[in-house]
């Protein structure tokens, strides 16, 4: 148990082992540990980001659905309004058309009636004369009574 050169040998060995450890052992393992720490941190951050993005997407999807529903409702109500309009328009058109047809029919009827009247008027004189001639036979002055009858016809 005496102090001797072993102490120097141990100091040299100590220095060598520490230097070896400092150069070849510690840095690679520490680098791996740091690397893993960073990887885990990145992974967690990515997961957090993903969750956030998913939340945003859900919100956006709900917004889109909401908008779509609103649009659909608007379209439906527009369509209904348009349908009603078309129905109303058709009714109006039909009424106007009916009125028009009615008016033209009336006019036609009147025209027919007038024509019939005219025809009747043109024939009534001669029929009356023929009738009168048959009744009175030849005692009537054709000329004098034609004037009289014409006056009568124009009064009908």
């Amino acid at each position: 148990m005496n102090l001797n050169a072993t102490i120097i040998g141990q100091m040299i060995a100590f220095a060598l082992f520490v230097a070896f450890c400092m150069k070849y052992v510690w840095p690679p393992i520490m680098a791996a540990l740091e690397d893993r720490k960073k990887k885990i941190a990145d992974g967690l951050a990515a997961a957090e980001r993903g969750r956030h993005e998913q939340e945003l997407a859900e919100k956006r999807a709900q917004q889109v659905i909401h908008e779509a529903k609103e649009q659909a409702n608007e379209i439906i109500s527009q369509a209904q309004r348009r349908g009603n309009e078309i129905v109303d328009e058709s009714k109006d058109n039909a009424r106007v058309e009916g009125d028009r047809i009615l008016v033209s029919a009336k006019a036609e009827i009147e025209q027919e009636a007038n024509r019939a009247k005219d025809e009747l008027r043109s024939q009534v004189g001669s029929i009356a004369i023929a009738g009168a001639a048959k009744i009175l036979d030849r005692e009537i002055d054709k000329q004098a009574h034609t004037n009289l009858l014409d006056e009568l016809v124009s009064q009908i």
Partner: protein
Amino acid sequence: MASEALTSSQYIKHHLQNLTFGQHHDGSWGLAHDAAEAADMGFWAINVDSMGMTLLLGGLLMWFFRSVAKKVEAGVPSGAQNFAEWIIDFINDSVRGSFSGRNPLVAPLAFTIFLWIFLMNLMDLLPIDLVPEIAKFVGVHVFGMDPHAVFFKVVPTTDPNITFGMAFGVFALVLFYSIKIKGLGGFVGELTLEPFGKWAIPANFLLEGVNLIAKPISLALRLFGNMYAGEMIFILIAIMFSAGAVMASLGGLLQIGWAIFHILIITLQAFIFMTLTIVYLDMAHQEHH
């Protein structure tokens, strides 16, 4: 187990003697045959057993961790890498907790100190005669030595040369960083101007000088003392095995108890050496004004 040829005191002495290589009185170089011859060799001798064990254990340590570091990966760790990372994380946490400066040397230094001392201390848990008997067998049959001249102290930390070697290594680093960080003037000022101011420089120097010198001495002697005492108790328990059946069974129980307790001591002493090293280096890095 004490061999029949040895008395108890011889057995103890045999176990406490290092295998020393140095220069004999007659000028030739060789291994010392007994304690007196080893003492005669003076300073320029080497304790072959301590040096061999410490290099072997340090080599094993570095080989293992180097092999892990070679194929280390940042992905999912497995097997040896898990184990190495667990230890390295533990040491890194200790360094971060105690060392406030920024120095890439401190963590590997703490790592080497802790595991190397732990492994050296761990040799204490080997059966006390196992390695010496192997050494004796090899010494007698391979080198043709006298069986009583084959000494082998298995636990390097029971050799003060080893503990002082490491403590002085740490002390050299403390001095180096003290001067590097604070400057030579700052370091000398810290030694001479505190705590009583510039009118009491001798008293200051005495106090701070003792304070400084106490660091490596206490570091080395604490480890050496604990391990030496522990080894001594193992030796004494081993002597009980040759003193009859009752004493032998009692010795067996004691051995188990002491070994379990010793697991705590060897870890604790390695941890204390490491922590104090970190603290001393931290103090060397701090500037007081």
